[in-house]
């Protein structure tokens, strides 16, 4: 990362000819300077992260419906009521949230798993130079470069039952199926969503792992080859251990992104996802925007935030401890 530092002799430059020698500008002294320099970062951090988060937590303690949305000060303070209502797994809302949570967890784990597998496979295959490698690299990155909306809306056209290309190929051309299946409603919708998500995310895994592979010294492979290690052995004993730092971050980031993914299901299903693919982000959106109940929507968001914090903390703890063990 680039950091700019002031040259130590900047203040002592010779005055240019013709200009009267000025007294060097006095630098503000004392402990004020660091705070002044930090101020822009602090302001942005407050504005972008902290304040919205605090507001979100505050909203979750209010009964914020259409009657009060215009002037929050009139919204009754209900304390934990929103949490009680949304997290009570015996109520309809709680049951749906729990259902949505399991769906999202399964979706995230599978999506990250497949994206990583595809990413590592492609990165390893493209590790050695060959004709057309650059072209393949560029091609593999296309899904990541496409705007989400354009890419996912195209998928939604492909997956339409009567007019979609997928059914046209499967049913009309290959004759693999007799009935036209639905891809965007019913049980298949989960798998459609998963495919689209993996398709969108794997290039990122590929990009990171490809970069990571550049740092693996060639001598290690040579040494392994001399020791008689085959492809799989080299993968297991050289490539993967060397990629460990990349993987640590990559898997966590992919998991957090997928778990919070809103764009893909929103565009694919047009706002209200089928039960089988009711991801938690869509669920929260529906609970707050569609039913104008921003309090319980916020309560769900805060619960989600806490869950992701715990997951991240546990993940980092475990992986750090392992690293300490190795050291």
């Amino acid at each position, binding site marked *: 990362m680039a950091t700019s530092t002031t040259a130590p002799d900047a203040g002592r430059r010779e005055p240019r000819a013709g200009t009267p020698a000025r007294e060097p500008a006095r630098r503000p002294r004392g402990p004020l300077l660091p705070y002044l320099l930090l101020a822009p970062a602090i302001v942005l951090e407050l*504005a972008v992260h902290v304040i919205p988060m605090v507001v979100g937590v505050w909203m979750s303690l209010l009964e914020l419906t259409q009657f009060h949305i215009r002037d929050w000060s009139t919204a009754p303070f209900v304390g934990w009521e929103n949490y009680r209502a949304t997290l009570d797994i015996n109520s309809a809302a709680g049951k749906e949230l729990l259902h949505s949570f399991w769906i999202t967890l399964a979706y995230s784990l599978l999506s990250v798993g497949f994206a990583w597998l595809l990413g590592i496979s492609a990165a390893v295959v493209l590790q050695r130079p060959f004709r057309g490698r650059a072209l393949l690299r560029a091609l593999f990155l296309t899904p990541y470069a496409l705007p989400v909306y354009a890419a996912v809306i195209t998928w939604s056209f492909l997956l339409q039952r009567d007019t979609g290309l997928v059914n046209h190929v499967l049913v009309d051309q290959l004759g693999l199926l007799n009935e036209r299946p639905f891809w965007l*409603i019913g049980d298949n919708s989960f798998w459609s969503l998963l495919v689209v998500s993996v398709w969108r995310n794997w290039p990122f895994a590929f990009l990171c792992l490809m970069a990571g592979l550049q740092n693996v010294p060639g001598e290690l492979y040579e040494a392994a080859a001399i020791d008689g290690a085959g492809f799989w052995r080299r993968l297991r004993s050289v490539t993967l251990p060397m990629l460990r730092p990349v993987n640590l971050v990559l898997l966590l980031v992919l998991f957090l992104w997928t778990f919070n993914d809103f764009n893909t299901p929103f565009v694919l299903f047009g706002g209200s996802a089928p039960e089988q693919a009711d991801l938690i982000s869509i669920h929260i959106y529906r609970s707050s925007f569609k039913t*104008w109940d921003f309090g319980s929507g916020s309560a769900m968001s805060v619960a989600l935030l806490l869950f992701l914090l715990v997951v991240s903390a546990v993940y980092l703890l475990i992986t750090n401890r392992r690293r300490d063990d190795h050291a």
Partner: protein
Amino acid sequence: MSRRHLGIFTAAVLAAASLTACGGSGDDSAASPKTLTYWASNQGASLEADKTILQPELDKFEKQTGIKVTVEVVPWSDLLNRLLAAATSGKGPDVVNIGNTWSASLQATGALVEFDDATLQAVGGKDRIVPAALAAAGAPGKPPAAVPLYSMAYSLYYNKKMFADAGITAPPTTWEQLAEYGKKLSTGGKWGLAIEGANPSENAHHAFTFSQQYGGEWFDSAGKPTFDTPQNVSAIKRYIDFMAADKITNPSNAEYAQNQSVSDFANGKAAMLLWQSAGSNLKTQNMPADAYGVAPVPFLASPPAGGKKVNSMVAGINMAVFKHTKNKDGALSFVKFMTSDEEQTILNRTYGSLPAVKTAGADPAFSAPEQKSIQETLVTTAAPLPQVPEESTFETLVGTAMKELFADAASGKPVTEASVKAKLTDAQQKMR
């Protein structure tokens, strides 16, 4: 105060100052009395078409008053959210179109200018407005939150040639007939009835009509939801059964949310369609007006006790003014302009809807068969959706429950009284 504390204090003050500086900007409400921002709803075939239709009228208004109106046509899928955001933030347009069923919901936010008698007088007077349309402009007993702009109602559109080919001589007048005819028409890849199954609003509108016919209500007199009553269960099941039991609707319709059912009807893939003012849309899809007939929406052959003779909601578009406008007089004069006899005639003629003012109905365009049918329904058998603050939530929850039931029907899962009731009970529990 130590130096250390002074430093922290300075940083905090700087932070606070820059934040308040962020707050004042980003106001796109017209500040000058010579401009207005107007969000129009999507009434024509596309957003672009609407702009082309509206722009000459806005130019005319500018010529008359010197006020320049900037129009943005907002798609229906975004409109309610955008209105809600504008109501919340106190920023946004001056004048907006709203679906008339949202009137009470938006009224409850307190963000809309109330049209009390004096304000109504300023936009042309209460007596000009069609009473049924005005009844759908806010909660009963309160000054309306909006002024009716376009009036519409549901009708049954049927393909004349497909009917003739199947030997059917007259459109169905009962649901039983509709199912029977539908079965005759559902052959060779064609279907009897097209349904917009994944569109919650469309579903909710039908939920209202069927419930009325079965003697049900979605809200009791105290405004509490009564979603899962036996009447409502029968009503919803009757509608879903066109796909689930009668099989006169293509299962694919469970995916439809972008007016594909209108296209299916226009392309002859389906013989019947229940829609409001479909004519102008059908025309742009190259279906000439003499290719289809327009009939009233059917009733039950033998209505149960308490069943009402209602076959449409009072559908329509209202015009509202945000309280946060800095140009209220200009906004009201724009409302007056848009509800004037001349503009009502021009715009409703183009959109195939009906004027919301009594004085503009004389134009021959409003005596075409489609408009006559709409007119007749509006004066005889249409009823407004419940004007309660929770109306928009009802549309979303019940409409989505029906979307899920259509998905069940399409994927071959049985739709029973019990499964319908379970969905409606769930929906009701989510009401606050």
